[in-house]
């Protein structure tokens, strides 16, 4: 019994280590940026390609750029214009990866989540980032390998669902925008689970299928709010709508979200 389990584990580990990984990382806060780059070293291998966007003033932060260059094998550092906060940057990074025909099976989408306006905002970010900790990586890839219906793997504590079947609406300020986007682009799903915080692993084929057939990344970026002051406290935004819809890229193709 134990021997079988060990063999399955070894096979899964070998298979997942051969898979190509793409990391799309948006950084904005200096203190968190160094911490995240350090954590990402656990993924640093020949089969992993990192794309970074240095937002705010980080593009002129020479120590950070040196740390990225020195610690990671395959990497590209970009300075994407401030359009649509982390969502716009992640979409642009994905578009660049596709233009360069970078081979990838699993994509990690992340940013330095801080939420300074929320109590325990950093704790929220830390919890979401456990999916890049070495202790969880094997579990994540073996989940993808063994459960073919899983499209996204993320921290279980932040899988949320705001959809109300009674009112057929989403309990958030971006309700009308979400409905409009889903209608315009014919995105249909019965599972409205999403990762609050937008940090997750996803099967790359789902991103390619979605952006290849339904709509291109530039159309989404064009719809996102520009500049830095994008909050949804009292009024919804396209950015916050897409923060949720990003996960429905998987659920609309029949895949589920798995929490660890």
């Amino acid at each position: 019994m134990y021997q079988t389990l060990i063999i399955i584990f070894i096979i899964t580990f070998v298979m997942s280590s051969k898979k190509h990984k793409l990391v799309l990382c948006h950084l904005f806060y200096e203190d968190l940026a160094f911490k995240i780059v350090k954590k990402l070293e656990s993924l640093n291998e020949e089969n992993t390609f990192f794309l970074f966007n240095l937002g705010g003033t980080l593009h002129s932060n020479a120590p950070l750029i040196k740390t990225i260059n020195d610690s990671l094998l395959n990497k590209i550092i970009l300075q994407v214009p401030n359009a649509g906060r982390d969502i716009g940057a992640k979409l642009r990074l994905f578009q660049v990866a596709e233009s360069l025909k970078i081979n990838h099976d699993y994509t990690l989408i992340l940013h330095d989540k801080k939420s300074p306006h929320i109590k325990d905002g950093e704790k929220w970010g830390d919890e979401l980032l456990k999916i890049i900790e070495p202790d969880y990586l094997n579990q994540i890839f073996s989940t993808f390998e063994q459960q073919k219906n899983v499209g996204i793997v993320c921290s279980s504590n932040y899988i949320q669902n705001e959809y109300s079947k009674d009112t057929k609406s989403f309990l958030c300020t971006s309700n009308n925008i979400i409905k409009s986007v889903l209608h315009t682009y014919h995105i249909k799903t019965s599972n409205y689970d999403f990762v609050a915080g937008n940090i997750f692993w996803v099967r790359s084929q789902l991103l390619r299928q979605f952006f290849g057939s339904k709509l291109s990344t530039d159309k989404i970026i064009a719809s996102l709010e520009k500049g830095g002051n994008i909050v949804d406290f009292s009024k919804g935004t396209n950015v916050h709508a897409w923060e949720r819809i990003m996960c429905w890229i998987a659920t609309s193709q029949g895949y589920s979200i798995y929490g660890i």
Partner: protein
Amino acid sequence: MEYKQLFQLNISANAQTISDVQSVTSDLEARIVFKLNAGNEEELQNVLRFVFLSGNSFEFWTELDLTLFEKKISESWLNDFAGLLCDMNYTKLGNKKLVGYNASHPHAIKIISQIQAFLETQGFANILYIPMQEEIIIDDIYIQKINSGVEDSAYQRMLNTIRNTSYPLQLYFDLTDLKNGPQNIRVISESLSNRLSQAAVDKDMLSRVYMLKKALDEQNDKNKTLHSTLITNNTYIDFLKSIIYGGEEEMDGAGNYKYSEMIKIKRFYHYEYEILPLWYKRFGHILKVLTGKRTFRSLFNDNVQKYK
């Protein structure tokens, strides 16, 4: 190199000559100007791969040749061009990225407008579109094309012009137009540097102007980010106020703030229950157990079911 304080070398390359030109630019501490045919997807793909995947780090900007332009530039080319503009080493002057184009094309304005409109939707607001000529002065930036040597009259004109701009003079060389390419660039640059050095006052003053202008641009960039953060924080403060005061911070006739419904309920709870003595509240809990509204175990353990 000393002349870097006063002027900057820019050397053009295309998809075929990138590797050769890059060895020259790295030696001369020059920038590459990629000549791209607007709309040619294969060529742009080659340049993208060279910039991002060759492992070489070099500063560059682009000059668009519009000759091959037909009807409409494809979305794919525009997206790849947007990707190229995101490179960390793409040249910025005054926080604007430089994109040159051949202004002699009859539809130049129309084509550039199309590219500009797309890029603006993608957030690229700070781009300086430069109609390339022999001599260009645009947005405080002075670009001079050099085809052979620099004659006395041309030197004097350059000197007079750079006194009125805030960035180092941009010398632009097209390697294909120059005999003995890199060697010629070196000779011209050193000769120009010597002549500028002789005008010692100009040289020191200009270096200082350029240095301060660069520092100012960097501060403006930081200022922009800080300003944006400030607006976000102010928006959040307004949001918190709206929770507390239900919108505007208004006062009633007695000079008290008008509070939102949520705050009214919270205050009601506080004054009706929270201020009661502790022994009274505890007696209330026991009463709840006796009337069957709360479990007995929950009086001693927070981890069990509290209400029936």
